[in-house]
């Protein structure tokens, strides 16, 4: 069944220079495998394609039921160089929650 990512996970995002990180955390440990399967680097890159240069990296933390993503070239230079309203990537996490994924019934 298709559902937004917000159905099974919560997120927090921030910056390091021109890189945005998004922590994606399963609400329930049982949904962690669905995160690993559905929220791939490719899908995250495609989701943010209109605003990031890439690449996207992914790291796994099964003990936290969580994935961490690094989006490179994501903030128009980052810090005070960036011209963007969200120059520190605070809202990327909330945006990603709208991504549609396939979840277990």
């Amino acid at each position, binding site marked *: 069944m298709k559902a937004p990512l917000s159905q099974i996970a*919560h*997120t*927090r995002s*921030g*910056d*390091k*220079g*021109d*890189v945005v*990180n998004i*922590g994606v*955390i399963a*609400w329930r440990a049982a949904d962690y495998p669905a995160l690993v399967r559905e929220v791939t680097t490719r899908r995250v890159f495609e*989701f*943010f*394609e*209109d*605003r990031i240069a890439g690449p996207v*990296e992914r*790291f*796994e*933390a*099964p*003990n*936290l*039921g*969580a994935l*961490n993503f*690094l989006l*490179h070239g994501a903030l*128009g*230079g*980052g*810090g*005070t*160089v960036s*011209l*963007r*309203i*969200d120059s*520190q990537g*605070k*809202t990327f*996490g*909330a*945006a990603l*929650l*709208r*991504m549609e994924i396939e979840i277990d019934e």
Partner: protein
Amino acid sequence: MIRVANGQGFWGDWLEAPVRLVEQGPIDYLTLDYLAEVTMAVLEKQRQRNPELGYAADFPPLMERLAPKLKQKGIRVVTNAGGLNPRACAREVLRRAPGLKVAIVEGDAVTARIDEFLAKGYRLNHIDTGEPLDNVRGRILSANAYLGAFPLAQALTAGADVAISGRCADSALVLAPSIHAFGWSAGDWDLLAAGATAGHIVECGAQTTGGNSQVDWREIPDFDEIGYPIAEIDAGGTFAITKHAGTGGRVTADIVKEQLLYEIGDPRSYLTPDVIADFTNLHLADDGPDRVRITGAKGRERPSCLKLSINYAAGWKAIGTLVYTAPDAVAKAQAADRIVRRRLEKLGLRFDEIYTEYLGWNACHGNAAPAAWAVPEVQLRIGVRGQDRSAVERFTREMAPLVLSGPPGATGYGGEGRPKVREVIGNWAALLPREEIRPRVEVFE
């Protein structure tokens, strides 16, 4: 066990938070983290205007306000408020609160040594992009190494009531009291990892007590008096995250997980100057109301290099805004954007970047935003950045005329007047072998 509370997550955080941490319950150490990457750029601008500045100016008045209570309760303060100028910061603290014993940590500033480093063959290439430093070499304004926790611990052991560092790892503010209290040393990698992890969890203040959390924000009580985080750390390297009883906010394992992942890279290798911490073996458990117990910290030998934070002059920028209203708010704003861009082009002005956003429509959620026709009002936000200040100045004259000469329904041009031209300071991160950096501790009696 020691109780280490963090009362500031950045410079500009809630002024009452540290005062409430001191007054509303027991703590042993108060840490205050003022430095973000962008803060260093702000401090650089301030120091250029006045060489006696360049530190977190909120800090000395706070020490004046808190000094009697700190003395009475035996609470000691650990902070990176020194920024680019710890010595001037300490002088101002001593002037305002002469009863406090103040120590500073220096040795992070290496601006004058860049040529020496390059001559020795250190490339100082950009940590993410690999670009050579030559691209910004002639425009460097300041360079600082991220110091670790041991110099701050030494300051505490020397009896400082207030230990002030310049640039250091944020997590070092919490690790330092742990090293001081428990006698941990280089080689105790699991213990150092525990202290650094606790530091990472509390370094952003209320972000670990319910602030900016997606863990049902509607249910989080009393944001207006949110409690700031306290790490209760024991000598064996287990710790709990909590807050004072009776304060607002909430501490749960889900919320702490959000913060654990905040602004990190590989969770197996959280790099600090003192240890490489592994977050993938941690166990988080709710342990009563507003209390999370954390065990299983693992660490590996500290990195051979320290991170350098280099500020460089990167030109000028200005942001212009106008609000457009329905019908067709977004279409009107897009038309206005085209007008501005054509006018800039016809004036022959050159910029490094022109970037347009539509606040209220898709500035934050991009392609996931709703259909443009459904948006009742939108703020057009055009930013320009370039090396030629006069071109940026000229842009600031191009927004207001649209109100009379562009699409209908524009407003929101008054109030702040023309856009301001701001200096852009870029931040360059690089790596330097740690032997090159010799931190110094100085205690003011």
